[in-house]
C-alpha cells in the first residue's frame, strides 16, 4: 500500500488539476456563447448569398459559358483539401475527428490515383497531418495570434485559393471543418467549394424561384464577382463554425475531466483514510501486544 505522504501528494496534485480544468471549462463556456452568436449572425449573409447564387446558377446550368468557379474546369485530377482545425488542444476529439474524415478522403483519392494537395488552418491540424502527409501540405495558416477570427482572415485564405485555381494548380476544392450542432455534438463535415455545389445550397423555400430578374451588369459579370465572394464567405462560415465547435468540444471535455478528477479525489481519499486507519490499528496492536508480553 502506498504510503500516506505519497497519497496526500497525489490528492493535492489531482485537485489542482481539477481547478485548472474547471477554470478552462468556465472560460470555454463564456467564449462559446460569443462564438455561437457570431455563427448565428454570419448565417443570414451566407444563406442569402447562397440563395442569390442558386437563382443565378439555375440560368447557367447546362451551358458551356458558365464560369469555371461555378462549373469546374472539367478535370478532376488534382484535389485541394482545406482542413480547418483549432489552434489549441485540450478539446476532446475535436481535431482528431476532422482530421480522421480528411485522412479517409485523402487515402481514397490517392487510391484512385488523384493528386492531393493540402492547405491546413490551425496548429493542431498541422501536428496531426505533418507526419503522414507532410509532402502534400502546400500551405499552413496559423491564426493563433488573431483574437477574433473574422472576414479578413477568411479573405486571405480565399485569395490564396483563387490564385492557385487561376494558375491551374488544382481542379476541385473541398473544405473540412466541424459543424456546430449543439454543445454536445459537433459534426465534422466536408464541403465542396469549387465547383460550386448547387445541391447543398438548396433551401426548402422555393417561393422566389420563378421571378424573372433583371440583372445589372449581366448575369455573367455578376457571377464573376459573386463566386469569389461566396468562397470567402463559405470559409468565414467554416472558421466561425469551427471556433464554436472547438469551444463546445472543450466545454464537454473539460466537464468530463473535472468530473473524473473529483471521482479520483474521492477514491484517493478513501484509500488514504483506509491506510491511515490501518497504520493506526497496527500501531495499537503493536503497543497492546508489547504490553501483554511484559
Amino acid at each position, binding site marked *: 500500500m502506498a504510503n500516506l505522504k505519497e497519497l496526500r501528494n497525489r490528492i493535492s496534485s489531482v485537485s489542482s488539476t481539477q481547478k485548472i480544468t474547471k477554470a478552462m471549462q468556465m472560460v470555454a463556456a463564456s467564449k462559446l456563447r460569443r462564438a455561437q452568436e457570431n455563427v448565428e449572425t454570419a448565417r*443570414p449573409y451566407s444563406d442569402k448569398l447562397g440563395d*442569390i447564387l442558386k437563382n*443565378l446558377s439555375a440560368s447557367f446550368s447546362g451551358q458551356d459559358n458558365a464560369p469555371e468557379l461555378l462549373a469546374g474546369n472539367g478535370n478532376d485530377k488534382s484535389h485541394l483539401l482545406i482542413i480547418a482545425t483549432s489552434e489549441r488542444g485540450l478539446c476532446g476529439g475535436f481535431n482528431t475527428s476532422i482530421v480522421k474524415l480528411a485522412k479517409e478522403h485523402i487515402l481514397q483519392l490517392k487510391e484512385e490515383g488523384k493528386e492531393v494537395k493540402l492547405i491546413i488552418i490551425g496548429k493542431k491540424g498541422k501536428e496531426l497531418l505533418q507526419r503522414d502527409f507532410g509532402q502534400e501540405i502546400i500551405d499552413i495558416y496559423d491564426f493563433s495570434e488573431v483574437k477574433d477570427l473574422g*472576414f479578413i482572415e477568411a479573405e486571405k485564405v480565399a485569395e490564396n485559393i483563387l490564385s492557385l485555381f487561376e494558375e491551374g494548380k488544382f481542379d476541385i476544392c473541398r473544405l473540412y471543418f466541424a459543424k456546430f450542432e449543439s454543445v454536445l455534438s459537433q459534426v465534422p463535415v466536408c464541403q465542396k467549394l469549387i465547383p460550386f455545389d448547387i445541391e447543398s445550397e438548396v433551401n426548402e423555400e422555393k417561393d422566389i424561384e420563378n421571378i424573372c430578374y*433583371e440583372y445589372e451588369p449581366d448575369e455573367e459579370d455578376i457571377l464573376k464577382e459573386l463566386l469569389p*465572394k461566396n468562397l470567402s464567405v463559405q470559409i468565414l462560415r467554416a472558421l466561425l463554425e469551427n471556433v464554436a465547435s472547438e469551444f463546445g468540444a472543450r466545454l464537454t471535455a473539460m466537464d468530463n475531466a473535472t468530473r473524473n478528477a473529483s471521482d479520483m479525489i474521492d477514491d484517493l481519499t478513501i484509500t488514504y483514510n483506509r491506510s491511515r486507519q490501518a497504520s493506526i490499528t497496527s500501531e495499537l496492536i503493536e503497543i497492546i501486544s508489547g504490553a501483554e508480553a511484559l
Partner: protein
Amino acid sequence: MSSKLNFDFVSPMSSIFSGEVDGILIPAKEGDAEILPQHAPFMTALRIGVVEIKLTDSENLKFLIDGGFADIALDQVTLLAERSFDLVKSSKEDFDKIINDIAKDIEKSEDDREKEDLLIKKEILEANYS
C-alpha cells in the same frame, strides 16, 4: 398595395439593418439607383458609395459601403456588403480613425485602381464629416 419595403442589410459578421423602409438609394455598378416599393425584380452589383435608407420623410440612415450586392424582389430588398461604415451615428473619433487609416492605405497602395477607390472613399467620408 403596400407602400413600404422590407429591407435587410447584412454583412458577414452581423445584421446591420432590418425593417420596413420608404425607399433606398443604392450605388449600383452602372449608376445610382433608387429603390421604391413595387420595384421590378432586379439584381445588381454595387460599387463603393453611400447607401441611403429612407426610414421616414425626415429620417435617413447613411452607410458607406465597399461594394456588394443588392437583390430586389417583390418589396423585399436584400443588401449584402462586407464592410460598411455608419455615416450618421459614428462619432468624430471614428471618422478620424477611418480617414487616417485610408490615408495610410493610399500612401502604401501601388495599384492605381485601388488608389482611386480609396480616394473616392476618403472623399465621401470627408463630405459627410460634420
